[in-house]
Structure formats: C-alpha cells, structure tokens
C-alpha cells in the first residue's frame, strides 16, 4: 500500500519540474486512460483509499500522537510477517510434544488459518442461505407452514449469536462444527425474514401475467417468484457475508482449535497489539476478496439488471 503512495508522490515530483500545464495534461491523460480501463481505475481507487487510511495512521505515529505500543502503525504490524505468522501456528502449538518451531512455516500458517476460517464462513453461509431461502419460500407457499413456523422464527431472530455460543459447544463440542453452527444460527433467522420480505415485494403484475397464461402455483414460484427475488436475495447474501465473518471469530475464539478468532484471543491474552492489527488486516483482505467474488457472481447471474449506481452518478 505504501509503495503506491510513494509512486504517486514520485509522479508529482517529476511533473513539478515541467510547466504546470503539462502536469495537468499528464494527469488528465492518465485519468482518461483509466476511465477506459475500468477495472484498472477501480484497483487504483482501492489502493488510494487504503493508502490514504494507512497514511493518516502513519502520520499520527510520526507526529507522536499514536503510541506504537498500543496503536502500532501499518509499517510496524505488516513489517515482519514472518514474526507475526509464527503465532498463527495454533493448530499444532498446543499439541503435547510439539515445539513451537515445528510444523508449517509462518507464511503457511497464515494461509492455513485464513483458509480454515474462510472455509467455515463459506460453509455456514451456504447452509444458512439454502435453509433460509427454502424455509422462506415454504412459509409463503404453504399457509399452514407459515402459521406453524413463522412465530418461532420471529421469536428467535433477535437472539444474539453470543447467546448461541454455549449451545454450539454443548451440541458440537470443539472443532469445525460449532463454528459453522454459529454462522448458520446467526444468519438463518434474518435471512428467512428477508426472503419472505423479498417474496412479498414481487410485482403483482408479474404474478398476474403468469396466472393469465395458465401457470400453476408451483410454476409461478419456480418461473416468476424465484427469478424475481434473486437480485434482492444476492444483496441479502452480501450483507450477511459480513455478518458471517463477524460471527465466525466469536465462535473460533472459544470453541475451535485454530482459526483467526484463536489468533485474536492469543493476541489479547498476550497483549500483542501488532498481532491484533495484523489479524484484522488479514481478515479485511479475506472479507474484501470474498465480497468481490460474490459481486462478480452477482453480475454473472443477474445479467438483466442495469447498473443502478450509474443513475446517481449524474447528480
């Protein structure tokens, strides 16, 4: 991130020796070429956004406002990945007869830990969405099911995932299962309500058209309601993705042998702010990548939707 900032500064410095107009021309040309390459512009802005944030932090450190022991700036907590990575080796560290130096390298440890947490998020998200969309559709499809199930779902939706934590451990002990259970239980109830809400907002005309064409109830659900709620559901999924990342850490910090949550707890217990921020950075990157993948999928699946952000851009 810091490299990008330097490059930017270097560009400006080089331009300063030439007349100001030339600099402006160069700048506008650079900008125009980026508008042509849309993705490149996006990468550029993403880097700029992050380096601005990191730069402010570094500035606070340089001015002496941020104590490096409590709020270590990025160049400190990202500076020594090998050092930090050692702590990620939680999978083998607690095993009897295993020394801290054995097992995977620091970099591998970070990868393994990140992958384990990501896999739990992914599994939880998939299970929760399938269950929630299924139950949501059934609630609207069968009035009987609605009356039987919806009150309980509404009753359980406000319960904090923290409250489910002991239940997860009672039921599943220690391992992947309680973490995945936590993600599912944190998302499921809201996603059911969101699905029902999406179904209720399907345009009446769409349903009426299908009815006049002689479509049966299952056909209306399969051919009209499901495609019509898809855009909204993917949005719901994206919002819940972040929720899943938040919950998985809570679950991992207690029940599970290894994972990002464990590293955070370790950092807390050993008073290691650098490790906390390093882990936060890793989580951020993973979550960002996950969201990006989901947005790509969204664009592929929802080919018919116009780019709505474009409408507001003209204001």
């Amino acid at each position, binding site marked *: 991130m810091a490299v990008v900032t330097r490059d930017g500064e270097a560009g400006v410095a080089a331009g300063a020796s030439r007349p100001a107009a030339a600099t402006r021309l160069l700048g506008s040309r650079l900008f125009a070429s980026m508008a042509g390459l849309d993705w490149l512009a996006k990468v550029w802005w993403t880097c700029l956004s992050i380096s601005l944030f990191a730069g402010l932090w570094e500035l606070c450190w340089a001015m002496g406002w941020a104590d490096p022991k409590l709020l270590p700036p990025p160049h400190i907590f990202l500076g020594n990945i090998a050092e930090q990575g050692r702590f990620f080796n939680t999978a083998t560290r607690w095993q009897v007869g295993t020394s801290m130096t054995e097992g995977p390298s620091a970099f591998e440890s970070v990868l393994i830990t990140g992958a384990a947490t990501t896999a739990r998020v992914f599994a939880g998200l998939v299970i929760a969405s399938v269950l929630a969309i299924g139950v949501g559709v059934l609630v609207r499809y069968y009035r009987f099911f609605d009356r039987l199930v919806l009150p309980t779902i509404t009753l359980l939706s406000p319960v904090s995932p923290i409250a489910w934590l002991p239940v997860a451990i009672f039921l599943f002990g220690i391992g992947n299962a309680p973490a995945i259970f936590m993600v599912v239980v944190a998302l499921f109830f809201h996603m059911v309500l969101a699905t029902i809400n999406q179904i209720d907002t399907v345009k009446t005309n769409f349903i*009426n058209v299908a009815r*006049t064409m002689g479509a049966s109830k299952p056909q209306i659900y399969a051919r009209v309601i499901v495609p019509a709620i898809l855009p909204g559901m993917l949005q719901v999924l994206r919002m819940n993705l972040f929720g899943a990342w938040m919950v998985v850490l809570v679950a991992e910090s207690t029940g599970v042998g290894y994972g990002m949550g464990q590293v955070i707890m370790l950092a807390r217990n050993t008073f290691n702010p650098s490790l906390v921020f390093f882990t936060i950075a890793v989580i951020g990157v993973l979550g960002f990548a996950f969201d990006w993948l989901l947005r790509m999928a969204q664009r592929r699946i929802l080919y018919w939707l116009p780019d709505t952000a474009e409408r507001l851009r003209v204001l």
Partner: protein
Amino acid sequence: MSSEIAPHFSSKDAVVCRGVGKTWAAGTKRAHEALRDIDLDIKPGEFVVFLGPSGCGKSTLLYLIAGLEDATGGQIWSFSDKVEMPSPERSLIFQETSLFPWLTVWQNVSFGLAIRGASQEERRKVAAEALQRVGLIAAMDKRPDELSGGMRQRVAVARALAMRPKVLLMDEPFAALDVQTRARMQDFLLDVWRDSGASVLFVTHHIDEAVALADRVVVFTSRPGRIKTIYPIDLPRPRNLFSREAETIRIQLTELLRDEVDRAFAEQEAFATPA
C-alpha cells in the same frame, strides 16, 4: 353448480356479465364498493372501451372478467364458460410494463407455451410469428430493458397474441406513452384486432382514445362503478378523428363524463371535510 347458471344469456357471446358487483375488503371496516350491478354483453370480435373517471372500478371489472379477482356479486361467463379463474383465452395487458426482465423478448412472448411444456423450437416459432405481427421480429433476442416503452407494450401484445386469446383485456395499456407514440399504437392495435378476430375490452380515461378505437363505449359512473350508458360509435374505419361527426361524439362523451367527474370531486371534498 349448473343450476346456478342463469338461462338468459347467449352462449355465443365473448363476455356476459349479469349483476356483477365487487366490494373490496368485504365485511371489514375498510370495505368499499367498487362495482355494482353490471350487466354487459360483448360480442365476439367487438371492440369495447370502458370509459370513466379514475377510481370508478372500470379496471376492477376487467380484472373480474380476467378471473384474477372474484366478484362478490353476480356472475360472469365467457363463451358459455363460467369465469372462475384466469384463462389463456382471456389475455390481460397491463398499463405498467409486465415483461419479465430476466427473459429475452422471444422467451417472454412464448412464456405461456413454456408453462405448457412446449419444445424450444415450437416456442421460438410461435414467438417469431407473434413478433412478426407486431413488427418486432428484429428484437427477438433482445432483453426488455433494451426496448423503448412503446416497443415493450408491443411485445406485451405479442405475448398475449401468442396465446391465441378470444378476448383481449387491456388495462390502460398506452397510458404511460407519449401522445405521438400512443396514436401510432392505437393504429397498430386496430390492425392486430382486425387480424386476430378477438374481442377487445379496453380501459381508458381518455375520450380521444375511446373515439379512435371503440365500436361501443361503456361509460361508468363514479363510485360505486355502474354502467351509466353504453354509447355506440358507428364511424367507419379507418376513422377520421377530425371529422365533424367525431367531434360531436367527443363532445357528447365529454358531457357524459363531466357529470361523473364533478360528482367524484364533490364526494372527495365531502370525504376530506371534517363533519
């Protein structure tokens, strides 16, 4: 059930209404009567326009005839079948675009065939025929959001025609279009109507539209909607809408409608004024 069917209707008629009424939210505090005592006979191949002030229940009657809503009084038949649920024989075209955005134009047009499990080739063939009739064969593989408002309504008409309906129900289909496009769409609709031989029931609150299109104009009273009068228009087609006769009809319809609009206004004011 058969004993309920009243004997006094001609089974050849496209639509027969006897004493049809509709009260929304019947039996609750919010109950309000939208339609009362509608008696109406529509011949096969006839073009009938429902004209009335906004909220007079003319669209409600269309939905009842389509079978999308149940009448709370009276009975409706279509070609001697009692109307109890929607049927592809009575296609409804809405004011608002109702094309499915996730399907291409031809898939939209052949949606009804897909429901019946027709093969891909058959669906494409029927869709091509229907789109040919509305002059949009070139747009076959486009998506609805790539079309203009007028083109979308033509696709909606094609979708209805693909079902080979005997009755075409149209709920202010051109209301969202600009004046020039609307005039072209009216000509287009008359061509389609002549070719298809279907009866058309067309809801509008535009007098000009009624004069341009209708064999008969059913003028509605304001709430609850009742038939005030049925006004036949005998002008030869293609019609010259600027002729003296057309002007006379326009004036007479305006007079008929003005009373109702005045009454609706007075009611709204009474409603808004605290007692």
